[in-house]
């Protein structure tokens, strides 16, 4: 699928429009990343199962943002950076030699901490941006696709009368949902969220947590959060990261969320979730 050749499946899809369920899990194998000479994370291995929410928690500076940016090859868009290791999307390593990172990012979407709608585009154009700017605008059915995405994130009723207004004219929580809609519009298989509610108020935060709960049926979701309660609320699997003595982030423990929060195996995990540091 990465080289751009259409996949041919012997069993034809039914003519009725059906959302195909993601079969894609994301498996990170021994990911290490550097900013110049400084190593930020060391050999982090994590499996994010398909159709589930995996949360990554840890104190500031533990490398969780760096890690999640390796999962869709965003880390390397910064100058003078390096990544080692493998990330398997449905069995294929996205760091393989012939793989185009641009195509990777069309399969693995990302939402950032601060909502970043494009200021020169309207709400409609923002949602459509991924399709239009990649040259796959479906012409007549574009408004329907936009409606679909906005509906999915529960924003349609709130913006249906102001689709032509700039994307930045919405409130913070609405902007973030707009960014999620924008990411969903290109039908990714995995959705990465880097502290998506970090800049939002509690009401907006709750709305997004509810949304993620609904989305997980159709997307594999990986979310970085420094809000432990949030991780406990919405995730199926939780991974705890920590910076070691030389300030390099490592994975301390990963497991089912319930287990991590009630019966962690590692002493450091327990200290973190009971609030003794971080």
């Amino acid at each position, binding site marked *: 699928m990465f080289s751009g050749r259409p996949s041919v499946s012997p069993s034809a899809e039914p003519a009725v429009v059906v959302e195909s369920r993601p079969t894609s899990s994301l498996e990170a194998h021994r990911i290490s990343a550097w900013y110049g000479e400084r190593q930020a994370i060391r050999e982090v291995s994590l499996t994010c199962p398909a159709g589930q929410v995996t949360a990554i928690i840890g104190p500031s500076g533990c490398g969780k943002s760096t890690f999640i940016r390796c999962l869709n090859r965003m880390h390397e868009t910064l100058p003078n950076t390096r990544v080692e290791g493998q990330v398997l999307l449905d069995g294929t390593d996205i760091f393989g030699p012939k793989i185009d990172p641009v195509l990777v990012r069309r399969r693995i979407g990302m939402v950032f901490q601060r909502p970043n709608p494009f200021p020169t585009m309207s709400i409609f154009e923002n949602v459509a941006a991924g399709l239009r700017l990649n040259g*796959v605008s479906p012409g007549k059915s574009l408004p329907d696709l936009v409606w679909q995405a906005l509906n999915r994130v529960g924003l349609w009723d709130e913006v249906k009368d102001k689709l032509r207004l700039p994307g930045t004219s919405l409130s913070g929580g609405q902007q973030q949902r707009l960014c999620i809609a924008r990411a969903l519009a290109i039908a990714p298989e995995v959705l990465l969220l880097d502290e998506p509610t970090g800049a939002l108020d509690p009401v907006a935060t709750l709305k997004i947590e509810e949304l993620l709960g609904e989305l997980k049926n159709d997307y594999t979701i990986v979310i970085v959060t420094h809000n432990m309660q949030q991780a406990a609320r919405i995730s199926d699997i939780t991974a705890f990261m920590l910076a070691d003595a030389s300030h390099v982030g490592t994975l301390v423990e990963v497991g089912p969320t319930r287990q991590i929060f009630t019966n962690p195996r590692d002493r450091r995990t327990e200290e973190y979730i009971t609030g003794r540091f971080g």
Partner: protein
Amino acid sequence: MATIPSVRELRVRLLQAPTGKRADPSLANVVKLCAIGVLILVVAIALSMAIDARPSLARFGLGFLISQQWNPVTDQFGALPFIYGTVVSSLLALIIGAPIALGTAIALTDLLPRSVRGTLAALVELLAAIPSVVYGLWGIFVMTPILRSTVEPALRDSLGQVPLIGILFSGPAYGVGMLAGGLIMAIMIVPTIAAISRDVINAVPVAQREGMLALGATRWEMIWHGVLPSARSGILGGVTLGLGRALGETMAVTMLIGNRPAISASLFAPSYTMASVIANEFTEATSDFHVAALIEIGLVLLGVTVVVNACAQLLIWRMSGGAPRTTVL
């Protein structure tokens, strides 16, 4: 309602859509080419002038710079009068303009009430928006009559009687001349120097000012001892930039300096700058040597202004530790 493409269809199309493999490097190369174009412009200008000045360079050599002869009829050319005119008029502009600019900057940062600072600063910057030729026009019809009838005779009668410096204020009062040229350039460089000085003075931390005042200093002492020393290299940079502007100034000076290629001690006497002689004589140059000589003068002017401006930029960069103002006109 049109059929919405299925998720599978969308994904297939997205994975077949172009990823910029060829377009990315193309754009990068196009903008790089533009950048290189900017880079070679300066070099190209210098080179082009050097090439066209060759006949003159070959014929007169270094003596060109110290010869006072300027005779298109006999093809004898020397740049000294113009170098003298340029240097003296620019220095005059600095001597008159820099203190005014500095005083303005101090007034606009530390003295006048905050409410008027912005408006007055904008007004001063307005001086920079007036084109050189308009300054020249005003100079011819407003300033030089006043110089000729009032200011220069007054100077001659007062300072002109003082031994040693009296020679600067001697001779007939034409109105046009070195003094007029230097004066108009002084006005023109005030906004440049004032703008940079203001930035630099404003950058001095408030704590330094308050510290001085707390020690019992008068307002002026606070400025002189507490603010200006820190701002010194930046102000010097601004002054140097002003000098650079004055050196390259053409139109207003041409209209006011009298255009006579002779070296004279008096500020009342007409003079000639490098830029002015090029502006006046280029289109009517009689021989190839004449043209080449004028271009050689242009080359000297280019070299001098580039060096002066480079020094100014260095001084300003050192002070602000970063990019210089982009809106200096």
